[in-house]
């Protein structure tokens, strides 16, 4: 019995090592270009088989959808795990205790219920993070002086965003970069000093942080009566949208305020779309296009190992390009949990990328009946 068990775990270790190597090869071979369909399909099937074998709740879910690796016709048919699954199930191929990291969601939509994404190690995650970051955010330079408005990785080990930002600074931060977030929250005076110095040095900088963090920073700078004209090529990176913090401000308002307060134009404001449930990030292409051909493509693009599919909300089958759908991602870097996930985000694909239209709003009844979303809202 014991030998059988150790044999089995050896198999898992071997399989795991193979899968990781193949994903890393895929990343290095195709980067942010488009990978051939058959290469993507082949690796997606490999990973699906691996997860089907070892990730038991996911296997049960796929069985309920009547999909097995043997019957799978194309990666498009891999059952996407709804994000709720990451909250309620333990979705991991490698046993939970053997995982080096677990990233959790903030639980904004349903407080008390956090989604978890298990990572046996962060080798693939780190590579998947840095390659597109360089491609979409740093097409013109190796390093840049960065101010981060969110907690660093050592403050929040369970936040994929903290890991992300820490990696960005490690890999691409120039001297003078720093994290301006302490236990009590945003370090406003620290950011102010950073901005003062950047202006004085006329040094190109990048601010990075959650979209909502900027709202607080803008309020603070407003009160201080501060406005800057940051050096050419400076950029502002935001992620996450506003979630529940403030609903009266639109993204356009925010970017207009960036122009006013930091002197950074819309062409250099860039949004990253990431999710704890994924192991990769998706980016606006405007910085890349600006430094490639001078154009401004604000549509989102995935790296070669991520494909996003837009589904009809009623039937969950793909919609035609140009029509809004709920987004499912197939992320080959998510090799341990579930490579296919079903989000609650809406988007539209066009020829040059896709537009993200935000989280689907709660449904309201047409008349005097009341829906579950309204009851939840009333009880919140």
């Amino acid at each position, binding site marked *: 019995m014991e030998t059988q068990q150790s044999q089995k775990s050896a198999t898992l270790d071997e399989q795991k090592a193979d899968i990781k190597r193949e994903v890393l090869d895929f990343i290095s071979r195709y980067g942010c270009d488009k990978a051939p369909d058959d290469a993507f399909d082949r690796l997606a099937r490999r990973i699906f088989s691996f997860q089907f074998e070892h990730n038991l*709740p996911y296997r*049960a879910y796929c069985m309920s959808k009547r999909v097995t690796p043997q019957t799978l016709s194309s990666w498009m048919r891999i059952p996407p795990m709804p994000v709720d699954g990451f909250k309620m*199930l333990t979705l991991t191929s490698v046993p939970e205790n053997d995982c080096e990291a677990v990233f959790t969601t903030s639980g904004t939509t349903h407080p008390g219920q956090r989604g978890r994404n298990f990572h046996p190690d962060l080798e693939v995650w780190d590579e998947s993070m840095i390659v597109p970051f360089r491609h979409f955010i740093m097409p013109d330079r190796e390093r840049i002086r960065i101010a981060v408005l969110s907690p660093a990785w050592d403050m929040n080990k369970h936040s994929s965003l903290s890991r992300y930002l820490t990696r960005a600074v490690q890999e691409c931060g120039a001297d003078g970069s720093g994290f301006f977030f302490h236990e009590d929250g945003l370090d406003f005076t620290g950011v102010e000093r950073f901005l003062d110095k950047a202006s004085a040095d006329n040094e190109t900088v990048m601010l990075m942080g959650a979209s909502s963090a900027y709202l607080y920073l803008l309020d603070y700078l407003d009160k201080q009566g501060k406005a800057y004209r940051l050096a050419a090529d400076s950029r502002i990176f935001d992620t996450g949208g506003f979630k529940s913090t403030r609903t009266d401000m639109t993204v356009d308002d925010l970017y207009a305020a960036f122009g006013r307060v930091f002197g950074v134009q819309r062409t250099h404001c860039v949004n990253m779309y990431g999710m704890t449930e994924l192991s990769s990030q998706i980016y606006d292409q405007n910085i890349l296009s600006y430094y490639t051909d001078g154009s401004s493509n604000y549509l989102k693009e995935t790296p070669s190992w991520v494909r996003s599919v837009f589904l009809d909300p009623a039937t969950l089958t793909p919609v035609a390009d140009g029509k809004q759908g709920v987004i499912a991602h197939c992320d080959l870097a998510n090799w341990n949990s579930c490579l296919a996930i079903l989000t609650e985000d809406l988007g539209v694909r066009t020829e040059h990328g896709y537009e993200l239209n935000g989280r*689907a709003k709660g449904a309201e009844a*047409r008349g*005097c009946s*009341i829906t579950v979303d309204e009851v939840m809202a009333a009880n919140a």
Partner: protein
Amino acid sequence: MSVIDVFHAPRDFTFSDFGTRDVSLSDGDTVMLRFPRLDASTVRALADSVRRHREETLARYSTDRIVNAIAQAVELWTDPSYSERRLAEHLIPAITGYDASMVRIELKRYMRMFRRRELLRFVDDELDCPQMLDEYRPNRSGGYTRLYGPELSFHVFSSNVPGIPVWSMTMSLLTKSSILGKSSFDEPLMPVLFARSLASVDPDMADALAIVPWRGGTVDLEDAAIGEADVVVAYGSSHTTEAIRPRVRAGKPFLSYGAKIGFALIGHEALRADLYADTVHRMAIDVATYDQQSCLAPQTMFVERGGAVPPAHVAELLACELESQQRKYPRSTPSEEESLAIQRLRSAVQMKALMLGAGPLAGACESDDDSMASDDPFVIQSRSDTDWTVLYYPSVGMADSLSTPLNRTINVVAVDHVEDALPVLRPYTQWLQTCGVALEPDRLFAVAQRVGAMGIDRICPLGEMNRAKSGWHHDGGFNLLDLVHAVDIERNTDVYCDGFDMDVE
């Protein structure tokens, strides 16, 4: 292309400016709906006009005469070839998206609720002496009482269930009130057609009515109407009614019929071998009728164990029955948000099932044993769309919410005794309304006592949840008494006044 006016106004009132809106019919035709463009002064002028007409008609009419006029108008609707009925059957499905056969059947049932004998029920149920609406009549404390209705009532109609405006228009007319009705663009037709029926019976009386659509939340128009009216009656979502409430001056009666949740309690006695099929059919009717958009509709059904058919099988049978309802009366097309909410709930329950059952199920894949025998939550859903969804929970604690995203999405919760459902209704008190029951008679009243104390205000047969009966105290209130105010001539006033009659000894 034919043009249909979706407004009604006194004959001597003219609008200067109109807007239109096209509706495509299932047969490929298009009709144009025409409606007046309004501003606050037009609304005030309209209010003034119907109030003046009331002085000459309704205010002078006896209650009997009004009852007869409404009854005659309603009687027209019992004729399948009646032009307005045909128009309703033709256009309402196209405007609302509801299935045509369902609209036809439900409308004809609904209109029959206002036949003469039913109207008498509305009046006599609440008033010991209905003639008090006409003149001072002796009261029980030795004096006299007369009931006065409002001069003008302003109604905000909802669009979810065609025909509901007929109820509130009828109640206002019975209290001799003129009416200014704001209809919804999502179903502007039915109140207007009913007003036309009244006009064909008594054109003078119908001049005391005005029905016009405008976009809900158009504050200047609504404030003008609220300012003119003596009573405001609002139907719709809580959002709609709560947006109006603060704008009604304190002291002015405001009746609102906002969002509600219905439940059903199904006893084991209704699941006997000879009865369960009918019970399940009735469950499906309650879920399918108007796609749960009515406040009367059920969102969770509690099914008792111990019958010939266990609750989990009832859920499966209900799924089959909903599929056949779908074939007969296809559901209207929900919005993207609604579809997503349904998908979200489906997957949440699937996840719950996986969370509870992942161990044994995963094991079963290898040993291939019968894992489905365990009593876990499950989801049964229409094949490719969100047409219908049955969410089964083996215990009351398992359901995260007793409300659903509607559109034929129903929770089935297994209970050992239907009474076990009562404690979990507590958080929903503010929304409770209808409770459909399938219980043996000696349990009916015992259960009714308890659910009544919890806030349920309507207990009805399973299968008839969407069909409130005439005389029902809508949301626990009074249909007529809430609209009128009483004037008393106190005891002895008559005797005292007799003293001024020189002929009296």
